[in-house]
């Protein structure tokens, strides 16, 4: 499947229709159906993304960057991805404030991941300055 976009759109509408069907009598089941539909969409996109991720990591290796940096970068993307997805689910369940708190915690986690990289840069700059002065 070159671009699975039509499949994704089809699944999204299907999930919406199924959720609408069930919402009349069983509103909580409608939320479960929307979650299941969301998960199917994400899984399809993630499988499509897997190939390009390998290419990206090969390019990163070629540039000679430290592999720890790349891994932290990927971790940040992963955390952002999961937090965004879970916040969506929480909004479906009607827990808006909980979703915002989760997003806030996700941001802090990403910040924590970024601290070591900051440290690397500062030590690098420090060494450079010592060379000059």
């Amino acid at each position: 499947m070159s671009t699975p976009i039509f499949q994704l759109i089809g699944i999204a509408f299907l999930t919406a229709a199924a959720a609408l069907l069930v919402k009349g009598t069983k509103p909580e089941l409608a939320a479960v159906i929307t979650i299941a539909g969301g998960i199917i969409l994400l899984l399809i996109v993630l499988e499509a993304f897997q190939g390009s991720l390998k290419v990206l990591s090969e390019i990163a290796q070629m540039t000679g960057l430290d592999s720890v940096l790349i891994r932290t970068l990927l971790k940040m993307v992963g955390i952002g991805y999961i937090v965004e997805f879970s916040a969506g689910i929480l909004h479906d369940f009607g827990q808006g404030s909980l979703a915002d708190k989760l997003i806030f915690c996700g941001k802090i986690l990403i910040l924590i991941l970024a601290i070591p990289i900051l440290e690397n840069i500062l030590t690098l700059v420090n060494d450079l300055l010592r060379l000059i002065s």
Partner: protein
Amino acid sequence: MDISVIFRLAAIGIIVTVVCQILKKSDRDDISTVISIVGLVIALTIAVTMIGDLFDVIRELFGVT
């Protein structure tokens, strides 16, 4: 991962609704509440296992431990 899961969940919803209506009409309301809870639990287990699969894929793809 295909679309049959959505159909299964929708089917659970419809079956539970029909059964509850029938039970309500034959004035056995307590059983109908139990049935609706059971339906919800089945749907939630399906959803939770799917969430588990998704998190495994993300953990393995992005290395988020």
